[in-house]
């Protein structure tokens, strides 16, 4: 077979399979979240659809598809429809550069367990994450509703404020690794004590906090503070358009967890178990943390949030770079 054709064929199959696995993880993350939140709050969570409520995500998806698709009369129709797509696409293409396993051999073909190892991998992640703001901005503006606009504005301001410290916190790792490729960064953390979490503990904390704020999750879920803003930027959205915002949110949670795993916990590397299992285990730990925090912490106030981002995290992130730089010279 023609090698170029074979490459294209393998790529297309690989991408389709990975996207489906990703969607599967997302839908079961919603199940896990409801189940865990339920048990933390001394409830049972979903239990009626299938054993342990395991078919709940599928039921939810079907329900969303059949719901009435409302477009408010005063909304800007085209932009209103485009907004969820603009949120959905960036959230689902970020993971392209994250390695989730070593090479495997299938049907005599050597396949890398990563969609693409590009030499500017980390910057790709930040570039795509930065584009995620627009879905929210456009949704808030196009709805032509006061709650939506306020929620959208708040979300935007919050996301860009925390994006600065989010990107700055990684610089320390880059200095140690000397590469922007996530594959290289994983390879450098080849044993337990070589994991970057031990060399960059401060960066890890900053990254995690900013990651939670970036995804608009509790305790930073201000844009969706029900008591003041109803549902924030997606107040006017119903049916699958609301579903797409929801998928995008969960996809971002998975992305942040996967990136944290890759950068700080050595990615897929680990003893005994197969690499993919290690990757999923480490990622699940972060996902659990996300849900746990949501069940435990009260919401920030908006002024506290902005102050914390600009006056605490930003100087700390810069300090971390300075410390790393000085230590590396000595």
């Amino acid at each position, binding site marked *: 077979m023609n090698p170029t054709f074979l*490459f*294209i064929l393998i*790529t297309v199959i*690989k*991408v*389709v399979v990975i*996207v489906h696995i990703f969607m599967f993880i997302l839908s079961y993350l919603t199940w896990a979240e409801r189940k865990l939140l339920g048990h933390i709050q001394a409830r049972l969570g979903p239990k009626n659809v299938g054993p342990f409520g395991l078919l709940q995500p599928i039921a939810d998806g079907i329900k*969303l*598809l059949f*719901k*009435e*698709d409302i477009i*408010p*009369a*005063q909304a800007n129709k085209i932009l209103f429809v485009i907004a*969820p*797509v603009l949120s*959905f*696409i960036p959230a*689902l*293409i970020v993971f*392209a550069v994250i390695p989730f396993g070593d090479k495997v051999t299938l049907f005599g073909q050597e396949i890398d367990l990563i*969609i*693409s*190892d*590009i030499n500017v991998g*980390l910057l790709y992640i930040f570039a795509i994450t930065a584009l995620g703001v627009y879905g929210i901005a456009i949704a808030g503006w196009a*709805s*032509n509703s*006061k709650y*939506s*606009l*306020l929620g959208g*504005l708040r979300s*935007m*301001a919050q996301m860009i404020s925390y*994006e*600065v410290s989010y*990107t700055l916190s990684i*610089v320390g790792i*880059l*200095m140690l690794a000397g*590469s*922007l490729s996530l594959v290289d960064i994983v390879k450098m953390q080849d044993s337990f004590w070589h994991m970057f979490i031990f060399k960059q503990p401060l960066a890890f904390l900053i990254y995690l906090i900013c990651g939670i704020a970036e995804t608009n999750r509790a305790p930073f879920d201000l844009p969706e503070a029900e008591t003041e803003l*109803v549902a924030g930027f997606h*107040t*006017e959205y119903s049916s*699958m*358009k609301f*579903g797409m915002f929801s998928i995008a949110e969960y996809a971002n949670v998975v992305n942040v967890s996967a990136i944290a795993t890759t950068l700080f916990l050595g990615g897929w590397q680990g003893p005994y178990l197969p690499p993919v299992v290690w990757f999923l285990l480490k990622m699940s730990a972060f996902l659990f943390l996300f849900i746990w925090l949501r069940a435990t912490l009260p919401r920030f106030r908006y*002024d506290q949030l*902005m*102050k914390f981002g*600009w*006056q605490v995290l*930003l100087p700390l992130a810069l300090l971390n770079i*300075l410390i790393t*730089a000085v230590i*590396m*010279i000595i």
Partner: protein
Amino acid sequence: MFEQYFPIFVLVTVVTIMALGMLVLSHLLGRKKGTKRKLMPYECGIEPEEDARQRFPVKFYLVALMFIVFDIEVVFLYPWAVIYKQLALFGLIEMGIFILILMVGYVYILKKGALKWE
């Protein structure tokens, strides 16, 4: 180049098709019974007054500007960090001066209270 970016191109295509598919499916499957009241913007049951698109505080604009400034700083920091091992002390000093000048601006903003939200 082709081998590196073609998979991402495929991924973007697949995801876009999925997004459009969801929009079309929910449009076809969902019931459509929009009444005048249902299509009004949600305002807790009260008749909406005035246009939703009011002018909002200039602070949001300031935050966006700060974001650009620090984003550009980050863009400089990335290549610097990647080759820091080769630059060593020289690199520390030159980036130190760069950030110090920016910090003057940062302190000025804080002193002016531009990032304070009451």
